[in-house]
């Protein structure tokens, strides 16, 4: 039982990482029906930005005196960085293709993903970069299992961001405009919503969430790599599809399910094949429920 609970904590942590990335996919897909292949690269860029900032602050000695403030600053700056990056990428590679065929946009996204990944490789090198290990590796003992401080940080940040995003989408004017654009872009434009701006902001928000996930993953596993974006990107997309693409709650749920599948299959079945189980779940869900668990939340003019 303790083993199970321990794995559950691990699964929730990992699922949270996937959920954060999946939100970017689901929001972008909800609005312009595009699989943003480059999204995984924002996750990697966020992880790198985090390590760059933390390493600098560490060398200046700020990390020793104010670790929490440093961490917050790293999060905010890395998220802002990826938001700016994503807005530019959207403008260069996706905006001119609004009316083009889906395949063209998909390939443009694929090209962008390769471009960004190699850009990271050229500027950061091919080897792992390690996060400064300032945050103690200690753990909280609850009953018979441990929660490490890093897990608390990860789950806390994920929860905070998810609640924040939910409020943003369902309570604010911007959220209303986003939902309106997702439902019917032409109609939203007619009532005064600038759809280009909304799309750009959606990319920015999605990338910021992915960046946050990137830092969390970097802190959690201790290092980042230039090609770390690809596999989590695909799994997060699987999570988004699993939950019903376009649905924000669905993406969170899907992320948790993929995280659990991965952790539990690694713990109880086989560690080497954990990725296979995530893909098998994806294929099975799409086969039996082609619109995902919570149903596809986009307008049906597409079909």
């Amino acid at each position, binding site marked *: 039982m303790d083993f199970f609970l321990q794995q559950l904590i691990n699964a929730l942590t990992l699922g949270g990482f996937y959920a954060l990335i999946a939100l970017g996919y689901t929001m972008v897909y909800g609005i312009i029906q595009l699989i943003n292949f480059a999204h995984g690269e924002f996750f990697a860029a966020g992880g790198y930005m985090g390590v760059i900032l933390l390493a600098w602050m560490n*060398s200046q000695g700020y990390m020793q005196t104010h670790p929490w403030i440093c961490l917050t600053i790293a999060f905010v700056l890395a998220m802002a960085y990826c938001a*700016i990056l994503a807005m530019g990428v959207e403008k260069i590679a996706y905006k001119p293709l609004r009316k083009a065929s889906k395949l063209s946009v998909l390939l443009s996204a694929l090209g*962008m993903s390769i471009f960004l990944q190699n850009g990271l490789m050229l500027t950061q090198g091919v080897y792992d970069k390690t996060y400064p290990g300032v945050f103690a590796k200690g753990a909280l003992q609850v009953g018979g299992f441990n929660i490490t401080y890093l897990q608390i940080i990860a789950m806390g940040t994920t929860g905070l961001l998810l609640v924040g995003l939910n409020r943003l989408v369902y309570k604010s004017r911007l959220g209303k405009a986003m939902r309106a654009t997702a439902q019917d872009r032409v109609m939203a434009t007619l009532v005064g919503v600038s759809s280009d701006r909304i799309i750009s902001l959606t990319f920015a928000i999605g990338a910021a969430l992915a960046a946050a996930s990137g830092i969390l993953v970097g802190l959690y596993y201790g290092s980042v790599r230039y090609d770390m974006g690809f596999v989590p990107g695909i799994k997060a997309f699987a999570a988004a599809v699993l939950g019903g693409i376009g649905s924000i709650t669905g993406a969170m749920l899907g992320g948790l399910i993929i995280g659990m599948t991965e952790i539990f299959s690694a713990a109880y079945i086989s560690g080497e094949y954990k990725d296979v189980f995530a893909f098998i779940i994806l294929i099975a869900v799409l086969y039996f429920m082609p619109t995902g668990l919570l149903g596809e939340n986009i307008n049906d003019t597409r079909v």
Partner: protein
Amino acid sequence: MIPASKAMLTKVVVGAVWLFAVVWPMTGITPQGFEFGKAFSIVGFAMTAVLAGLGLWKLRQKLGAAGFKPFTALAKRSSAMPAWLWRGLLLAVLLGFPFVSSRYGQDVAINVLVYVTLGLGLNVVVGLAGLLDLGYIAFYGVGAYTYALLSIHYQLSFWLALPLCAVMAAAAGVVIGYPTLRMRGDYLAIVTLGFGEILRIILNNWMQLTGGPNGLLGIKPAAVYLPDPQNGWEFARVLLKSPEAQYFLVLAIALFTVVSVRRLADSRIGRAWEAIREDETAASIMGVNTFAMKLLAYSLGAVFGGLAGAFFSAKMRFVSPGSFTFIESAMVLAMVVLGGMGSVPGIVLGALALIALPEVFRDFENYRMLVFGAAMALMMLFRPAGLIPAKRVGRRSEEAHS
């Protein structure tokens, strides 16, 4: 200054500022302090490239289509000559190529021909049937591992193994195709990608069968019986190890693929695929068995991947999962789309452009994939139909609805 050029200038300046904001944090912040030189040089280089590109673009607009006139004239003249003459000429060039080129040139040519085969195979699935497949390299892997295993464990000759590789790849095509038939577009893309990854993970972890990440060694090259002039023209077994021999082998496979794909495209089956691509509902109403046809597209496309894979493992005499990653699938897909979906000469040109051109710029090895990615995105902006668009393409059903 006229307003139009002013707007352009603002755009360029905003772009430069954005690029700096994106590049500097990645290159300039180090534990030792801040550094600006690298970021400035990258931004400067990129801006020069963009301005040069803009200049060329404006120039082309000013000249209109005049810039392309020699090209069209050449095309017109070429179509005036009989087709058999062209084909004969081309064949002569292809057959003579290894005798005039260096070893390096032959290696590049072999690579190009392997990718031509792969591209044409994928073309059956994506270009003709309109099924977006991001895991095509899996079939290449199936072919390569099939021959590797048959050769190592049963000492089966290449020529006997070749059809078996094709059959295994076709079977894999059916296995992957069957559950995905109900999906379209993006979902199909992601599921085929998932299948490709599953295969790679299995190859990576099934130690007893595939040797895991270390791969399989000791694969035999293909062999043929040739009359030996030194020994009174007696037939002798010759291993196809030299680059020339491998070139002829892969040339045969590639030519077989070219002819088959052309024939397929013009057959009833090919027409049915194109009907499915253009409008699946209409095709099924008109009596096309969409289920069988899509499965057939998957398995026939896979056959060519399997053939290329068998050649690959006979040539390298070593296979490992590292050769069958997603990026390879993306490369092959890029060839098909950049060259022109559904068009055979287009895909040949696409393979040439993506394999041979980067060899010319070998000194910039590190930037190769960077440029590849950028070129892929740019191509979609400026020439989405590909270099040589297929003649018989209508409005794809997806475009009409989105």
